[in-house]
């Protein structure tokens, strides 16, 4: 039977790995390649690596780094950060990456999804939407690390993304980022009815119990987390970790 996916999400900033709280207060947590090696040993389901500098600095993706990560990675790798064109996407696939994540470019120029999907197949195109609660209900989509608010309506936009051929949608809660107090279940409850492609939730997981709650409620879903898999204990010591096979299976039952 297909299992829910439990996915560490790593953020790259100034060539190192960082972890944020509400998209701010970046804390250095280590070297990307070293983290991938440890996650290989732990046999993680998948890995998402996001270069959070590329779009903001308006530069090309760091192909050398992507190649090094992809070569090391023995599980499926999703890379995001700075991808604006079909050529860039193609180049990244050729470096050995299974999926590419679009964020700003998908929000600003949704047609790119169709163009990339035509070349590489829809199953490999992921859109990550950073969302923040509105004061009076509902959610707004943000880009550029939570700095720029988009005018798009979240429900309508996820439908549009699927019509354009997206293969997976990752919803990332800015409010819950790094808080480690659980996922925003209202967010997913609100959006899930509009989504027929694989869906992944990111932001807020602080324990395996949080993941279990998500799986119990939504069954086949991607459970993505940053802090949970890089910090340990109440003082948040940096320690790369991931549930063992038997711990993982307990979450599925």
């Amino acid at each position, binding site marked *: *039977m*297909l*299992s*829910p*996916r439990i996915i560490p999400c790593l953020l790259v900033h100034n060539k190192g790995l960082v972890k944020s709280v509400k998209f701010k207060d970046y804390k250095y947590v280590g070297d990307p390649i070293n983290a991938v090696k440890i996650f*290989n040993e732990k*046999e993680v*389901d*998948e890995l998402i690596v996001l270069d959070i500098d590329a779009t903001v600095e308006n530069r090309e993706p760091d192909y050398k780094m992507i*190649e090094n990560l*992809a*070569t090391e*990675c*023995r*599980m*499926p*790798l999703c890379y995001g950060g700075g991808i604006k064109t079909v050529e860039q996407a193609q180049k990244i*696939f*050729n*470096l*050995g*990456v*299974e*999926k590419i994540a679009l964020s700003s470019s998908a929000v600003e120029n949704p047609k790119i999804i169709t163009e990339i999907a*035509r*070349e*590489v*197949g*829809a*199953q*490999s195109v992921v859109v990550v939407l950073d969302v923040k609660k509105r004061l009076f209900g509902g959610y707004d989509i943000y880009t550029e690390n939570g700095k720029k608010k988009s005018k798009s309506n979240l429900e309508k936009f996820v439908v549009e993304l699927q019509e354009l051929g997206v*293969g*997976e949608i990752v919803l990332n809660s800015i409010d819950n980022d790094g808080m480690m107090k659980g996922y925003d279940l209202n967010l997913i409850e609100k959006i899930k009815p509009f*989504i*027929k*492609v*694989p*869906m992944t939730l990111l932001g807020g997981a602080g324990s395996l119990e949080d993941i279990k709650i998500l799986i119990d409620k*939504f*069954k*086949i879903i*991607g459970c993505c987390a940053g802090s949970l898999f890089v910090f340990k204990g109440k003082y948040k010591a940096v320690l790369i970790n991931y549930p063992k096979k038997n711990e993982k299976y307990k979450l599925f039952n």
Partner: protein
Amino acid sequence: MIAIIDYGVGNIKAFANIYKNFNIPYKIAKSIDDLNDVTKLILPGVGSFDHAMQSLHDSGMKEKLDELVLDKKIPVIGICVGMQMLAKKSDEGQMSGLGWIDGEVKKFSREKLDINLPLPHMGWNNIVLNQENRLFDNLDEELRFYFLHSYYFQCNKSEDSMAIASYGENFTCVVNNNNIYGIQCHPEKSHSNGMQLLKNFGEL
């Protein structure tokens, strides 16, 4: 020598890296000249069916591959879209497949899938063997592999179906006929099971 076919589609480096770690000799074949002294073939593939078939034609290697596989009977394994290319045709495109295995590629039917099952079929799933094969020697008892696809291989001859997986319905995820193998899931990204399978293929 194993040749990993590099026709501009697919995850060449992931395979190269695995064989390098096993110290199993391999080469990356980009043109017909690279196919002279090979004893095994790996045909990776991602993306859409027509794009992959067109790229293989454009590489100039297709006729030589037909000869190696069909006349010289050297072992070949198609992976993901590379497996689908073994079929005669695909729902996903208009082009003819390689036709090395009697079958066609179908799309998962949204109607047959439970409302909770999204498309594409993405993630770790179990596979069940219909027949024993050396490809699966020394793997974990639980055969879990990573899948990422919306189309699947439908064999016209049931004896070509080596393993099945279940997603709304049972579908063939490993095919085999003589020297020709195909696997829908991604062994190059399926941790120790996948690495062992690729090692087994290298040692066939």
